[in-house]
């Protein structure tokens, strides 16, 4: 049954589906979901993708994940080391195809905030920081933002601070890339002429209404909105194999 699918597993499946075969994909820090998504993609529809771990291993044979996304055990049997500065060089060449980034706030235009709530010089809430967001968001062909707890406080009309650039903070030439937002409730994109956030899919067991109720602005609905497909049992099994301790659930508590 649909409602038996764990939210993290649903999100991992949706995130994996954003990767195409032969893509070059990097994961960053604090990234259990991206690591699992990359692992699922590689074992299913994207066997020829290039997998660059945040701890520099290329195409490692990942047997399990750890609380740190830089744990050197994630590099087991890698074919090479490729440093972050080299991966960033690749991004500047336009050859890093997909990047997964987090967000504490995301807005109507696709801006993300991971920096501060309130005044930047005397923050009400100091957030961890955007890591590579401001660098990679405008130059990576596909940016996937994952949000584990969609609510009207997280999905706001305008972010308090623009860490990662949405479409209204970009030049025309930097508007071409694709931002996809995958939340615990559904999948949002900006595939409309005004580049405004729209609901493209709702996860099984959820609805357009529920997404609208948990968004802090009037969110558009794509004309072809639909329910996202349920992941196959072998995909769920694979996720459990790589994450037997449920580290992926830490972001949902």
């Amino acid at each position, binding site marked *: 049954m649909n409602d038996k699918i764990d939210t993290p597993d649903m999100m991992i499946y949706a995130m994996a589906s954003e990767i195409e075969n032969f893509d070059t994909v990097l994961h960053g820090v604090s990234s259990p979901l991206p690591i699992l998504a990359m692992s699922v993609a590689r074992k299913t529809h994207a066997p020829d993708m290039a997998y660059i771990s945040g*701890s520099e291993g290329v195409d490692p044979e990942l047997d399990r994940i750890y*609380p740190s996304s830089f744990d050197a055990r994630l590099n087991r049997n890698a074919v090479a080391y490729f440093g*972050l500065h080299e991966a960033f060089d690749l991004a500047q060449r336009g050859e890093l195809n997909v990047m997964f980034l987090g967000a504490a706030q995301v807005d109507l235009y696709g801006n993300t905030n991971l920096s501060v709530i309130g005044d930047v010089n005397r923050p009400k809430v100091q957030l961890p*920081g*955007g890591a590579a967001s401001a660098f990679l968001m405008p130059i990576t062909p596909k940016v996937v933002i994952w949000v584990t707890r969609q609510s009207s406080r997280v999905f706001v009309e305008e972010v308090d601070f623009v860490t990662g650039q949405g479409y209204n*903070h970009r030049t025309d030439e930097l508007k071409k890339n694709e931002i996809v937002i995958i939340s615990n409730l559904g999948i949002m994109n900006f595939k409309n002429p005004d580049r405004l956030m729209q609901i493209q899919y709702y996860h099984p067991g959820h609805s357009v209404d529920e997404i609208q109720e948990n968004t802090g602005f009037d969110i558009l609905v794509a004309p072809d909105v639909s329910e996202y497909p349920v992941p196959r049992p072998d995909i769920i099994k694979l996720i459990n194999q790589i994450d037997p301790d449920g580290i992926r659930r830490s972001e949902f508590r």
Partner: protein
Amino acid sequence: MKKVLTGLQEASGLVEDGALVTFGGATFSRVPMEFVRELVRQGKKDLNLVDREPAMDFDLLIGAGCVAKVRAGMVAFEVFGMAPNFRKKSESGELVTKEGACQPIIAGFRAAAMGLPSLPVKGMLGSDLLTISEVIGSQKEIQDPFTGETMIAVRAIEPDVAIIHAQKADEFGNIRIEGPFYEDVIKAKAAKKVVVTVEELISNTEIRKMPQATTIPHFIVDAVVETPKGAYPCSCFNYYDVDYDHIKQYLKAAAKDQFEHYLDKFVYGREIE
């Protein structure tokens, strides 16, 4: 070559109050934690810390009152959540936090390593982080003289001291790093002074058998300190893994207002295996 082998206390003397300091490794991997604890024991003040994705090293020094300023792409404890002292002191105004982004920080180190005043990067345009950086004077929009393309010039970051934890070195400061390098080699080349703590000393004869493994040669290293378990509770590849339980214990102490107790036990009391 001259011998640079010294003790932890002597090496920490290279870090002056107010110095711009960076540490090797990333989050919980190969971070020079024993040297960090020594900085706390020596009562260093007003340090100016810079790194791309630090975690416990920055947070411990901040909590112990050694830090005035932080510049980082992200300061967090990965899946365990926020860096408690970093958050607390940023919000109380005791700490000046100037967030960067990973690429400009790495580019700043690279510029310094290359002997350049700045290095251009892509991205950043439109982010409020760029606006802040322009105010501080660490990044600036420029046009490429050949194509006219808009880029961001990042000012070189030349730390007063870079402290790195590595697996092996000889007494002259020829350093072998095993596993991922992170930006350690770049940082060593960028900094004015370089301190390397190592798990194990090996002979110069041994070093000469595999020169390609020496990623940091002796002439850029100022001090080597034999420091087994020097990254603990962070990991040191080929030697030991992260002690996640210890990291949870640290966070628990900070959350329960028992951070002083943590410092007494593990930093001043040296109750670390």
